[in-house]
Protein backbone atom coordinates (compact mmCIF):
# COMPACT_ATOMS: atom_id res chain seq x y z
CA UNK A 1 0.00 0.00 0.00
CA UNK A 2 2.81 2.41 0.84
CA UNK A 3 4.11 1.93 -2.71
CA UNK A 4 0.78 2.88 -4.26
CA UNK A 5 0.66 6.01 -2.14
CA UNK A 6 4.27 6.81 -3.03
CA UNK A 7 3.32 6.77 -6.74
CA UNK A 8 0.14 8.77 -6.11
CA UNK A 9 2.26 11.40 -4.37
CA UNK A 10 4.37 11.59 -7.51
CA UNK A 11 1.31 12.79 -9.36
CA UNK A 12 -0.15 9.82 -11.21
CA UNK A 13 -3.50 8.20 -10.43
CA UNK A 14 -3.52 4.55 -9.55
CA UNK A 15 -5.33 1.62 -8.04
CA UNK A 16 -4.11 -0.94 -5.52
CA UNK A 17 -5.16 -4.47 -6.32
CA UNK A 18 -5.44 -6.65 -3.25
CA UNK A 19 -6.68 -10.14 -2.43
CA UNK A 20 -9.72 -9.93 -0.20
CA UNK A 21 -7.99 -11.75 2.67
CA UNK A 22 -5.74 -8.72 2.93
CA UNK A 23 -8.46 -6.07 2.48
CA UNK A 24 -8.44 -4.99 6.14
CA UNK A 25 -4.67 -4.88 6.10
CA UNK A 26 -4.74 -2.65 3.01
CA UNK A 27 -7.33 -0.34 4.56
CA UNK A 28 -5.27 -0.07 7.72
CA UNK A 29 -2.06 0.61 5.79
CA UNK A 30 -3.80 3.26 3.64
CA UNK A 31 -4.71 5.15 6.80
CA UNK A 32 -1.23 4.65 8.29
CA UNK A 33 0.29 6.20 5.19
CA UNK A 34 -1.99 9.24 5.11
CA UNK A 35 -4.18 8.41 2.12
CA UNK A 36 -7.16 6.49 3.52
CA UNK A 37 -9.15 6.96 0.32
CA UNK A 38 -6.56 5.62 -2.06
CA UNK A 39 -8.44 3.45 -4.51
CA UNK A 40 -8.39 -0.26 -3.76
CA UNK A 41 -10.00 -3.06 -5.65
CA UNK A 42 -10.30 -6.59 -4.33
CA UNK A 43 -10.01 -9.92 -6.03
CA UNK A 44 -10.80 -13.29 -4.51
CA UNK A 45 -7.86 -14.68 -2.55
CA UNK A 46 -9.10 -18.22 -2.99
CA UNK A 47 -9.35 -17.84 -6.76
CA UNK A 48 -6.12 -15.91 -7.22
CA UNK A 49 -3.93 -18.27 -5.24
CA UNK A 50 -5.45 -21.27 -6.98
CA UNK A 51 -5.40 -19.91 -10.55
CA UNK A 52 -2.36 -17.64 -10.69
CA UNK A 53 0.11 -20.28 -11.80
CA UNK A 54 -0.81 -20.09 -15.45
CA UNK A 55 -2.04 -17.48 -17.96
CA UNK A 56 -4.85 -19.76 -19.10
CA UNK A 57 -6.18 -20.59 -15.66
CA UNK A 58 -6.09 -17.04 -14.40
CA UNK A 59 -7.83 -15.55 -17.43
CA UNK A 60 -11.42 -15.75 -16.07
CA UNK A 61 -10.33 -14.03 -12.86
CA UNK A 62 -8.68 -11.18 -14.76
CA UNK A 63 -11.71 -10.83 -17.02
CA UNK A 64 -13.86 -10.50 -13.94
CA UNK A 65 -11.60 -7.87 -12.35
CA UNK A 66 -10.77 -5.89 -15.50
CA UNK A 67 -13.65 -3.44 -15.50
CA UNK A 68 -13.31 -2.61 -11.81
CA UNK A 69 -9.59 -1.95 -12.17
CA UNK A 70 -9.86 0.20 -15.30
CA UNK A 71 -12.86 2.11 -13.98
CA UNK A 72 -10.83 2.93 -10.87
CA UNK A 73 -8.43 4.83 -13.12
CA UNK A 74 -11.05 6.91 -14.94
CA UNK A 75 -14.13 7.38 -12.74
CA UNK A 76 -13.92 10.80 -11.07
CA UNK A 77 -13.16 10.88 -7.37
CA UNK A 78 -16.14 11.23 -5.08
CA UNK A 79 -16.43 14.11 -2.63
CA UNK A 80 -15.44 11.75 0.18
CA UNK A 81 -12.35 10.60 -1.70
CA UNK A 82 -11.12 14.18 -2.07
CA UNK A 83 -11.28 14.93 1.66
CA UNK A 84 -8.03 16.10 3.20
CA UNK A 85 -7.00 17.38 6.59
CA UNK A 86 -5.67 15.48 9.54
CA UNK A 87 -6.85 12.20 10.92
CA UNK A 88 -6.26 10.79 14.35
CA UNK A 89 -5.66 7.09 13.87
CA UNK A 90 -5.08 6.15 17.49
CA UNK A 91 -7.53 4.95 20.12
CA UNK A 92 -9.71 7.75 21.37
CA UNK A 93 -9.58 6.64 24.98
CA UNK A 94 -8.42 8.16 28.26
CA UNK A 95 -5.13 7.22 29.86
CA UNK A 96 -7.00 5.55 32.71
CA UNK A 97 -10.05 3.31 32.46
CA UNK A 98 -12.41 2.28 35.23
CA UNK A 99 -14.12 -1.08 35.55
CA UNK A 100 -16.82 -1.60 38.18
CA UNK A 101 -18.39 -4.91 39.17
CA UNK A 102 -20.05 -6.63 42.10
CA UNK A 103 -16.95 -8.47 43.25
CA UNK A 104 -13.20 -8.52 42.62
CA UNK A 105 -13.56 -11.71 40.60
CA UNK A 106 -16.19 -10.10 38.37
CA UNK A 107 -14.16 -6.89 38.03
CA UNK A 108 -11.13 -8.92 37.01
CA UNK A 109 -13.18 -10.82 34.46
CA UNK A 110 -14.72 -7.59 33.17
CA UNK A 111 -11.28 -6.00 32.85
CA UNK A 112 -9.92 -8.99 30.95
CA UNK A 113 -12.86 -9.16 28.57
CA UNK A 114 -12.79 -5.40 27.98
CA UNK A 115 -9.10 -5.43 27.11
CA UNK A 116 -9.44 -8.46 24.85
CA UNK A 117 -12.48 -6.97 23.12
CA UNK A 118 -10.44 -3.85 22.42
CA UNK A 119 -7.64 -6.04 21.04
CA UNK A 120 -5.35 -5.01 23.87
CA UNK A 121 -4.72 -8.54 25.11
CA UNK A 122 -3.05 -11.68 23.83
CA UNK A 123 -5.79 -14.19 24.67
CA UNK A 124 -4.37 -15.23 28.03
CA UNK A 125 -5.53 -13.67 31.32
CA UNK A 126 -3.93 -10.31 32.03
CA UNK A 127 -2.74 -8.72 35.26
CA UNK A 128 -4.60 -5.39 35.73
CA UNK A 129 -2.19 -2.49 35.07
CA UNK A 130 -3.38 -0.34 37.94
CA UNK A 131 -1.46 2.88 38.58
CA UNK A 132 0.05 1.31 41.70
CA UNK A 133 1.16 -1.78 39.81
CA UNK A 134 2.71 0.32 37.06
CA UNK A 135 4.48 2.48 39.62
CA UNK A 136 5.83 -0.71 41.18
CA UNK A 137 7.01 -1.89 37.78
CA UNK A 138 8.71 1.44 37.12
CA UNK A 139 10.67 1.01 40.35
CA UNK A 140 12.86 -1.36 38.37
CA UNK A 141 14.36 1.38 36.21
CA UNK A 142 15.99 4.75 36.76
CA UNK A 143 14.64 5.98 33.45
CA UNK A 144 11.89 8.61 33.28
CA UNK A 145 8.40 7.24 32.55
CA UNK A 146 7.85 9.78 29.77
CA UNK A 147 11.11 8.97 27.98
CA UNK A 148 10.42 8.05 24.37
CA UNK A 149 12.54 5.18 23.06
CA UNK A 150 11.14 5.19 19.51
CA UNK A 151 8.14 3.94 17.57
CA UNK A 152 6.82 0.47 16.79
CA UNK A 153 5.47 -0.69 13.44
CA UNK A 154 3.11 -0.90 11.69
CA UNK A 155 1.31 2.18 13.03
CA UNK A 156 4.37 3.88 14.46
CA UNK A 157 2.96 3.97 17.98
CA UNK A 158 5.15 5.85 20.40
CA UNK A 159 6.96 3.63 22.89
CA UNK A 160 7.56 5.35 26.21
CA UNK A 161 9.05 3.75 29.28
CA UNK A 162 5.65 4.02 30.97
CA UNK A 163 3.76 2.28 28.15
CA UNK A 164 6.30 -0.51 28.21
CA UNK A 165 5.83 -0.79 31.96
CA UNK A 166 2.03 -0.98 31.59
CA UNK A 167 2.42 -3.91 29.23
CA UNK A 168 5.03 -5.53 31.48
CA UNK A 169 2.53 -5.47 34.35
CA UNK A 170 -0.15 -7.03 32.14
CA UNK A 171 2.33 -9.77 31.24
CA UNK A 172 3.03 -10.65 34.88
CA UNK A 173 6.63 -9.45 34.86
CA UNK A 174 8.55 -8.21 37.89
CA UNK A 175 10.25 -4.80 38.19
CA UNK A 176 13.74 -6.28 38.04
CA UNK A 177 12.91 -7.60 34.55
CA UNK A 178 11.92 -4.16 33.25
CA UNK A 179 15.41 -2.99 32.15
CA UNK A 180 15.69 -6.15 30.02
CA UNK A 181 12.25 -5.57 28.52
CA UNK A 182 13.04 -1.93 27.78
CA UNK A 183 16.28 -2.87 26.03
CA UNK A 184 14.53 -5.43 23.83
CA UNK A 185 12.00 -2.77 22.89
CA UNK A 186 14.83 -0.35 22.15
CA UNK A 187 16.20 -2.83 19.63
CA UNK A 188 12.81 -3.28 17.97
CA UNK A 189 12.19 0.47 17.92
CA UNK A 190 15.66 1.24 16.59
CA UNK A 191 15.38 3.13 13.32
CA UNK A 192 17.50 0.53 11.55
CA UNK A 193 15.68 -2.61 12.85
CA UNK A 194 13.06 -4.33 10.70
CA UNK A 195 10.32 -4.90 13.26
CA UNK A 196 7.64 -4.71 10.56
CA UNK A 197 8.55 -8.03 8.97
CA UNK A 198 8.29 -10.07 12.17
CA UNK A 199 5.21 -8.27 13.46
CA UNK A 200 3.10 -8.25 10.32
CA UNK A 201 4.34 -10.52 7.52
CA UNK A 202 2.26 -13.38 6.16
CA UNK A 203 5.35 -15.57 6.53
CA UNK A 204 4.80 -15.96 10.29
CA UNK A 205 8.32 -14.84 11.10
CA UNK A 206 9.36 -14.89 14.72
CA UNK A 207 11.64 -13.27 17.24
CA UNK A 208 14.53 -14.77 19.19
CA UNK A 209 15.82 -12.80 22.16
CA UNK A 210 19.02 -13.83 23.92
CA UNK A 211 19.88 -12.25 27.25
CA UNK A 212 23.57 -12.48 28.11
CA UNK A 213 25.70 -11.27 30.97
CA UNK A 214 25.22 -11.42 34.74
CA UNK A 215 21.73 -9.91 34.82
CA UNK A 216 20.26 -13.13 33.39
CA UNK A 217 21.18 -15.14 36.48
CA UNK A 218 20.43 -12.27 38.82
CA UNK A 219 16.80 -12.03 37.71
CA UNK A 220 16.36 -15.79 37.64
CA UNK A 221 16.31 -16.57 33.94
CA UNK A 222 16.48 -20.30 33.23
CA UNK A 223 19.29 -21.48 30.96
CA UNK A 224 19.21 -25.24 31.64
CA UNK A 225 16.96 -28.11 30.58
CA UNK A 226 13.73 -26.77 29.14
CA UNK A 227 15.14 -23.28 28.69
CA UNK A 228 12.87 -22.48 25.75
CA UNK A 229 9.79 -23.83 27.48
CA UNK A 230 7.29 -22.90 30.16
CA UNK A 231 7.64 -22.56 33.89
CA UNK A 232 10.28 -19.84 34.01
CA UNK A 233 8.72 -16.59 35.12
CA UNK A 234 11.58 -14.37 33.99
CA UNK A 235 11.99 -15.93 30.53
CA UNK A 236 8.25 -16.26 29.96
CA UNK A 237 7.04 -12.89 31.20
CA UNK A 238 9.85 -10.93 29.58
CA UNK A 239 8.81 -12.53 26.30
CA UNK A 240 5.14 -11.94 27.00
CA UNK A 241 5.80 -8.29 27.83
CA UNK A 242 7.35 -7.94 24.38
CA UNK A 243 4.35 -9.71 22.82
CA UNK A 244 1.93 -7.32 24.52
CA UNK A 245 4.05 -4.19 24.08
CA UNK A 246 4.50 -4.73 20.35
CA UNK A 247 0.79 -5.56 19.96
CA UNK A 248 -0.34 -2.49 21.89
CA UNK A 249 2.28 0.07 20.98
CA UNK A 250 2.45 -0.97 17.32
CA UNK A 251 -1.32 -1.57 17.16
CA UNK A 252 -1.35 -4.98 15.51
CA UNK A 253 -4.01 -7.64 15.44
CA UNK A 254 -4.18 -11.01 13.69
CA UNK A 255 -5.82 -10.97 10.26
CA UNK A 256 -6.18 -7.18 10.42
CA UNK A 257 -2.62 -6.00 10.05
CA UNK A 258 -0.64 -8.88 11.55
CA UNK A 259 -1.01 -11.26 8.63
CA UNK A 260 1.08 -14.18 10.00
CA UNK A 261 -0.90 -16.91 8.28
CA UNK A 262 -0.25 -19.67 10.79
CA UNK A 263 0.35 -17.42 13.76
CA UNK A 264 3.67 -18.08 15.42
CA UNK A 265 5.21 -20.87 17.41
CA UNK A 266 5.50 -19.71 21.03
CA UNK A 267 3.08 -16.89 20.18
CA UNK A 268 2.66 -15.43 23.66
CA UNK A 269 6.33 -15.17 24.56
CA UNK A 270 8.27 -15.40 21.27
CA UNK A 271 11.58 -17.28 21.84
CA UNK A 272 13.06 -15.61 24.91
CA UNK A 273 16.14 -17.29 26.34
CA UNK A 274 19.45 -16.55 28.00
CA UNK A 275 22.99 -17.67 27.49
CA UNK A 276 24.15 -20.32 29.94
CA UNK A 277 27.12 -18.34 31.19
CA UNK A 278 27.82 -20.71 34.05
CA UNK A 279 28.63 -23.58 31.72
CA UNK A 280 29.99 -21.67 28.75
CA UNK A 281 33.73 -22.12 28.23
CA UNK A 282 33.78 -19.09 25.95
CA UNK A 283 33.48 -15.34 26.21
CA UNK A 284 29.91 -14.04 26.56
CA UNK A 285 28.05 -14.01 23.29
CA UNK A 286 27.70 -10.22 23.35
CA UNK A 287 31.49 -9.89 23.53
CA UNK A 288 31.63 -11.51 20.09
CA UNK A 289 29.30 -8.69 19.02
CA UNK A 290 31.72 -6.03 20.17
CA UNK A 291 30.39 -5.26 23.64
CA UNK A 292 32.33 -5.50 26.88
CA UNK A 293 32.56 -8.89 28.55
CA UNK A 294 31.20 -7.60 31.85
CA UNK A 295 28.12 -5.97 30.31
CA UNK A 296 24.63 -7.37 30.44
CA UNK A 297 23.00 -7.28 27.02
CA UNK A 298 20.10 -8.39 24.90
CA UNK A 299 20.41 -9.63 21.36
CA UNK A 300 17.27 -9.53 19.27
CA UNK A 301 17.19 -11.62 16.11
CA UNK A 302 14.39 -12.09 13.61
CA UNK A 303 14.04 -15.76 12.65
CA UNK A 304 12.08 -17.77 10.15
CA UNK A 305 8.65 -19.07 11.04
CA UNK A 306 7.48 -22.61 11.48
CA UNK A 307 9.63 -25.61 10.58
CA UNK A 308 12.88 -23.71 10.58
CA UNK A 309 14.51 -25.06 13.73
CA UNK A 310 17.43 -27.17 12.58
CA UNK A 311 18.56 -29.92 14.94
CA UNK A 312 22.17 -31.02 15.12
CA UNK A 313 21.44 -33.54 17.91
CA UNK A 314 23.53 -34.47 20.91
CA UNK A 315 22.75 -35.15 24.56
CA UNK A 316 20.66 -38.26 25.21
CA UNK A 317 18.95 -38.39 21.82
CA UNK A 318 21.62 -40.66 20.47
CA UNK A 319 25.30 -41.33 20.60
CA UNK A 320 27.27 -38.32 19.55
CA UNK A 321 30.70 -36.87 19.25
CA UNK A 322 31.60 -33.22 19.00
CA UNK A 323 33.14 -33.74 15.59
CA UNK A 324 29.98 -35.55 14.46
CA UNK A 325 27.77 -32.67 15.59
CA UNK A 326 30.12 -30.22 13.88
CA UNK A 327 29.83 -32.27 10.68
CA UNK A 328 26.04 -31.99 10.89
CA UNK A 329 26.25 -28.23 11.36
CA UNK A 330 28.47 -27.91 8.31
CA UNK A 331 26.33 -30.23 6.18
CA UNK A 332 23.08 -28.56 7.20
CA UNK A 333 24.31 -25.04 6.53
CA UNK A 334 25.93 -26.07 3.26
CA UNK A 335 22.78 -27.83 2.07
CA UNK A 336 20.26 -25.24 3.22
CA UNK A 337 22.18 -22.15 2.20
CA UNK A 338 23.13 -23.60 -1.13
CA UNK A 339 19.44 -23.78 -1.98
CA UNK A 340 19.30 -19.99 -1.99
CA UNK A 341 22.58 -19.33 -3.81
CA UNK A 342 20.76 -18.74 -7.08
CA UNK A 343 18.95 -15.83 -5.38
CA UNK A 344 22.11 -14.01 -4.41
CA UNK A 345 22.03 -12.13 -7.70
CA UNK A 346 18.64 -10.62 -6.92
CA UNK A 347 18.36 -7.02 -5.82
CA UNK A 348 16.08 -8.32 -3.09
CA UNK A 349 12.53 -7.47 -2.16
CA UNK A 350 13.37 -4.29 -0.29
CA UNK A 351 15.50 -1.21 -0.44
CA UNK A 352 18.86 -2.84 0.23
CA UNK A 353 20.74 -5.33 -1.96
CA UNK A 354 19.82 -8.90 -1.11
CA UNK A 355 17.00 -7.89 1.21
CA UNK A 356 14.53 -10.62 2.12
CA UNK A 357 16.25 -13.33 0.09
CA UNK A 358 19.73 -14.58 -0.68
CA UNK A 359 22.39 -14.79 2.02
CA UNK A 360 21.38 -15.79 5.52
CA UNK A 361 22.62 -15.73 9.07
CA UNK A 362 22.38 -18.49 11.66
CA UNK A 363 21.84 -18.40 15.40
CA UNK A 364 23.54 -21.59 16.60
CA UNK A 365 22.72 -22.80 20.11
CA UNK A 366 25.30 -25.16 21.58
CA UNK A 367 24.64 -27.19 24.74
CA UNK A 368 27.22 -27.09 27.57
CA UNK A 369 28.74 -30.56 27.09
CA UNK A 370 29.26 -29.90 23.41
CA UNK A 371 30.85 -26.52 24.09
CA UNK A 372 33.25 -28.20 26.55
CA UNK A 373 34.18 -30.76 23.90
CA UNK A 374 34.66 -28.04 21.30
CA UNK A 375 36.97 -26.24 23.68
CA UNK A 376 39.02 -29.42 24.12
CA UNK A 377 39.28 -29.54 20.33
CA UNK A 378 40.72 -26.01 20.40
CA UNK A 379 37.66 -24.13 19.23
CA UNK A 380 36.56 -20.82 20.61
CA UNK A 381 33.60 -19.10 18.96
CA UNK A 382 35.72 -17.36 16.35
CA UNK A 383 37.59 -20.53 15.36
CA UNK A 384 34.31 -22.39 15.17
CA UNK A 385 32.80 -19.69 12.96
CA UNK A 386 35.79 -19.88 10.65
CA UNK A 387 35.70 -23.68 10.57
CA UNK A 388 32.03 -23.87 9.63
CA UNK A 389 32.41 -21.06 7.09
CA UNK A 390 35.36 -22.76 5.45
CA UNK A 391 34.00 -26.31 5.46
CA UNK A 392 30.55 -25.33 4.19
CA UNK A 393 32.08 -23.68 1.12
CA UNK A 394 31.49 -25.44 -2.19
CA UNK A 395 34.07 -26.32 -4.86
CA UNK A 396 33.70 -23.90 -7.75
CA UNK A 397 33.30 -26.77 -10.21
CA UNK A 398 30.19 -27.99 -8.36
CA UNK A 399 28.30 -24.75 -8.84
CA UNK A 400 25.84 -24.78 -11.70
CA UNK A 401 25.84 -21.94 -14.25
CA UNK A 402 22.88 -20.19 -12.60
CA UNK A 403 24.66 -20.20 -9.23
CA UNK A 404 27.90 -18.87 -10.71
CA UNK A 405 26.02 -16.12 -12.50
CA UNK A 406 24.12 -15.22 -9.33
CA UNK A 407 27.34 -14.98 -7.33
CA UNK A 408 28.95 -12.71 -9.91
CA UNK A 409 25.86 -10.55 -9.92
CA UNK A 410 25.93 -10.47 -6.10
CA UNK A 411 29.41 -8.97 -6.31
CA UNK A 412 28.27 -6.38 -8.84
CA UNK A 413 25.17 -5.16 -7.05
CA UNK A 414 26.48 -5.17 -3.51
CA UNK A 415 24.72 -8.22 -2.07
CA UNK A 416 28.25 -9.24 -1.16
CA UNK A 417 29.62 -6.17 0.63
CA UNK A 418 32.78 -4.57 -0.71
CA UNK A 419 34.79 -5.77 2.27
CA UNK A 420 34.08 -9.39 1.35
CA UNK A 421 34.73 -9.12 -2.40
CA UNK A 422 38.25 -10.50 -2.13
CA UNK A 423 37.08 -13.79 -0.62
CA UNK A 424 34.49 -14.34 -3.33
CA UNK A 425 36.63 -13.16 -6.23
CA UNK A 426 39.21 -15.70 -5.12
CA UNK A 427 36.61 -18.44 -4.66
CA UNK A 428 34.91 -17.98 -8.01
CA UNK A 429 37.74 -19.62 -9.91
CA UNK A 430 38.49 -23.20 -10.91
CA UNK A 431 40.19 -25.15 -8.14
CA UNK A 432 38.83 -22.81 -5.44
CA UNK A 433 35.86 -22.95 -3.05
CA UNK A 434 32.91 -20.58 -2.90
CA UNK A 435 31.36 -19.70 0.48
CA UNK A 436 27.62 -20.18 1.01
CA UNK A 437 27.66 -17.46 3.66
CA UNK A 438 28.80 -13.87 3.22
CA UNK A 439 30.99 -13.95 6.32
CA UNK A 440 31.92 -16.15 9.30
CA UNK A 441 30.38 -13.35 11.36
CA UNK A 442 26.97 -14.46 10.07
CA UNK A 443 27.31 -17.50 12.35
CA UNK A 444 26.24 -16.53 15.86
CA UNK A 445 27.32 -19.17 18.36
CA UNK A 446 26.52 -19.32 22.06
CA UNK A 447 25.83 -21.79 24.85
CA UNK A 448 22.34 -22.45 26.19
CA UNK A 449 20.51 -25.44 27.59
CA UNK A 450 21.43 -28.04 30.16
CA UNK A 451 23.05 -31.44 30.38
CA UNK A 452 22.05 -33.43 28.48
CA UNK A 453 21.25 -30.90 25.82
CA UNK A 454 20.73 -30.55 22.13
CA UNK A 455 22.36 -28.35 19.52
CA UNK A 456 20.19 -26.52 17.03
CA UNK A 457 19.95 -23.35 15.02
CA UNK A 458 17.49 -20.78 13.78
CA UNK A 459 18.11 -18.69 10.71
CA UNK A 460 16.94 -15.65 8.79
CA UNK A 461 17.87 -13.33 5.97
CA UNK A 462 21.14 -11.49 6.39
CA UNK A 463 19.34 -8.35 5.26
CA UNK A 464 15.61 -8.11 6.02
CA UNK A 465 12.94 -6.84 3.60
CA UNK A 466 11.95 -3.52 5.14
CA UNK A 467 15.00 -2.11 6.89
CA UNK A 468 18.76 -2.41 7.30
CA UNK A 469 19.04 -5.09 9.96
CA UNK A 470 17.19 -7.81 11.81
CA UNK A 471 19.87 -8.67 14.35
CA UNK A 472 20.88 -6.24 17.07
CA UNK A 473 22.68 -6.33 20.40
CA UNK A 474 22.27 -3.59 22.97
CA UNK A 475 23.62 -3.09 26.47
CA UNK A 476 21.07 -3.12 29.29
CA UNK A 477 21.06 0.08 31.31
CA UNK A 478 18.98 1.80 33.96
CA UNK A 479 18.55 -1.16 36.33
CA UNK A 480 18.13 -0.21 39.98
CA UNK A 481 17.12 -3.50 41.58
CA UNK A 482 20.04 -5.57 40.31
CA UNK A 483 23.78 -5.18 40.47
CA UNK A 484 24.05 -5.81 36.73
CA UNK A 485 22.52 -3.62 34.04
CA UNK A 486 22.71 -0.34 35.93
Amino acid sequence: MAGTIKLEKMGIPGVFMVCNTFADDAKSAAADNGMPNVRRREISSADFYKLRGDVKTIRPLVEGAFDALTRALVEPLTLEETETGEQAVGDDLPAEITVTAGSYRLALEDFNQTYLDRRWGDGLPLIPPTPDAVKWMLSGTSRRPDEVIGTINPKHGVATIEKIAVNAVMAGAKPEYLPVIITIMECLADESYDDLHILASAGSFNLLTVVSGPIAEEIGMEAGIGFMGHGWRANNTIGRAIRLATLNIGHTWPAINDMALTGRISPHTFFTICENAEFSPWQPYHASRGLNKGDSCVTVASVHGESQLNHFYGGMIGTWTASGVLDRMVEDIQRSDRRSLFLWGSKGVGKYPGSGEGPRNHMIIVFPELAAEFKKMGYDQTKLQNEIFKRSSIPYEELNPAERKAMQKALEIGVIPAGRNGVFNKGLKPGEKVPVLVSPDDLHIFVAGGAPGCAFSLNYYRVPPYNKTALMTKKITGAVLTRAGQ
Partner: protein
Amino acid sequence: MNSKTAFSETGGVTLSVLNPRGKIEAVPVTSPNPRLGGLDGKTIGLYSNSKPGMDNFYAVFERLLKKKYPAAKVVSMQGAFLIRDEDAGALAKQADAFVYGVGD
Protein backbone atom coordinates in the same frame (compact mmCIF):
# COMPACT_ATOMS: atom_id res chain seq x y z
CA MET B 1 -5.00 -5.56 45.99
CA ASN B 2 -3.92 -1.98 45.57
CA SER B 3 -5.04 1.56 46.28
CA LYS B 4 -6.89 1.83 42.98
CA THR B 5 -9.00 -1.24 43.65
CA ALA B 6 -11.78 0.22 45.74
CA PHE B 7 -14.82 -1.41 47.28
CA SER B 8 -17.81 0.84 46.67
CA GLU B 9 -20.49 1.66 49.24
CA THR B 10 -22.84 -0.78 47.55
CA GLY B 11 -20.37 -3.60 47.96
CA GLY B 12 -19.04 -3.48 44.39
CA VAL B 13 -15.43 -3.24 43.26
CA THR B 14 -13.93 -0.49 41.11
CA LEU B 15 -10.75 -1.27 39.25
CA SER B 16 -8.80 1.57 37.64
CA VAL B 17 -6.38 0.44 34.96
CA LEU B 18 -4.03 2.21 32.57
CA ASN B 19 -4.25 2.29 28.79
CA PRO B 20 -1.46 0.14 27.27
CA ARG B 21 -1.65 1.57 23.75
CA GLY B 22 1.13 3.56 22.13
CA LYS B 23 0.06 7.01 21.03
CA ILE B 24 -0.18 7.47 17.29
CA GLU B 25 0.47 10.94 15.99
CA ALA B 26 -2.23 12.41 13.78
CA VAL B 27 -1.39 11.89 10.12
CA PRO B 28 -1.96 14.56 7.48
CA VAL B 29 -4.47 13.19 4.98
CA THR B 30 -3.92 13.67 1.28
CA SER B 31 -6.28 12.84 -1.52
CA PRO B 32 -5.62 10.57 -4.48
CA ASN B 33 -4.93 12.26 -7.82
CA PRO B 34 -7.76 13.18 -10.20
CA ARG B 35 -8.55 10.33 -12.56
CA LEU B 36 -7.86 10.20 -16.29
CA GLY B 37 -10.51 11.22 -18.82
CA GLY B 38 -10.08 7.89 -20.58
CA LEU B 39 -7.51 5.19 -21.21
CA ASP B 40 -7.18 5.26 -24.97
CA GLY B 41 -3.79 6.61 -25.96
CA LYS B 42 -2.61 6.54 -22.37
CA THR B 43 0.30 4.59 -20.89
CA ILE B 44 -0.66 2.34 -18.01
CA GLY B 45 2.01 1.19 -15.57
CA LEU B 46 1.59 -2.36 -14.24
CA TYR B 47 3.66 -2.77 -11.09
CA SER B 48 4.18 -6.11 -9.40
CA ASN B 49 6.10 -6.73 -6.19
CA SER B 50 7.49 -9.91 -7.79
CA LYS B 51 5.25 -12.32 -5.89
CA PRO B 52 4.24 -15.38 -7.88
CA GLY B 53 1.36 -15.12 -10.30
CA MET B 54 1.16 -11.37 -10.83
CA ASP B 55 3.06 -11.76 -14.11
CA ASN B 56 0.34 -14.10 -15.38
CA PHE B 57 -2.40 -11.79 -14.15
CA TYR B 58 -0.83 -8.80 -15.88
CA ALA B 59 -0.21 -10.72 -19.11
CA VAL B 60 -3.95 -11.29 -19.44
CA PHE B 61 -4.75 -7.78 -18.22
CA GLU B 62 -2.52 -6.26 -20.89
CA ARG B 63 -4.22 -8.26 -23.65
CA LEU B 64 -7.64 -7.17 -22.47
CA LEU B 65 -6.53 -3.57 -22.14
CA LYS B 66 -5.15 -3.41 -25.67
CA LYS B 67 -8.22 -5.11 -27.04
CA LYS B 68 -10.56 -2.59 -25.44
CA TYR B 69 -8.24 0.45 -25.85
CA PRO B 70 -6.10 -0.24 -28.93
CA ALA B 71 -4.10 2.96 -28.55
CA ALA B 72 -3.23 2.29 -24.91
CA LYS B 73 0.33 1.38 -23.99
CA VAL B 74 1.66 -0.64 -21.11
CA VAL B 75 4.80 -0.30 -19.03
CA SER B 76 5.41 -3.38 -16.88
CA MET B 77 7.68 -3.34 -13.88
CA GLN B 78 8.59 -5.92 -11.24
CA GLY B 79 10.39 -4.82 -8.14
CA ALA B 80 10.49 -4.61 -4.38
CA PHE B 81 7.58 -5.14 -2.00
CA LEU B 82 7.61 -1.38 -1.53
CA ILE B 83 8.55 0.14 -4.87
CA ARG B 84 12.05 1.60 -4.72
CA ASP B 85 12.45 5.35 -5.17
CA GLU B 86 14.27 5.01 -8.47
CA ASP B 87 11.65 2.61 -9.85
CA ALA B 88 8.84 4.86 -8.68
CA GLY B 89 10.49 7.82 -10.39
CA ALA B 90 10.89 5.89 -13.62
CA LEU B 91 7.32 4.60 -13.59
CA ALA B 92 5.89 8.04 -12.78
CA LYS B 93 7.76 9.49 -15.73
CA GLN B 94 6.51 6.92 -18.22
CA ALA B 95 2.98 6.14 -17.07
CA ASP B 96 -0.21 8.21 -17.02
CA ALA B 97 -1.84 5.87 -14.49
CA PHE B 98 -0.93 2.64 -12.77
CA VAL B 99 -2.12 -0.61 -11.25
CA TYR B 100 -0.15 -1.81 -8.21
CA GLY B 101 -0.51 -5.51 -7.55
CA VAL B 102 1.19 -7.24 -4.67
CA GLY B 103 0.09 -10.84 -5.07
CA ASP B 104 -1.14 -10.91 -1.47
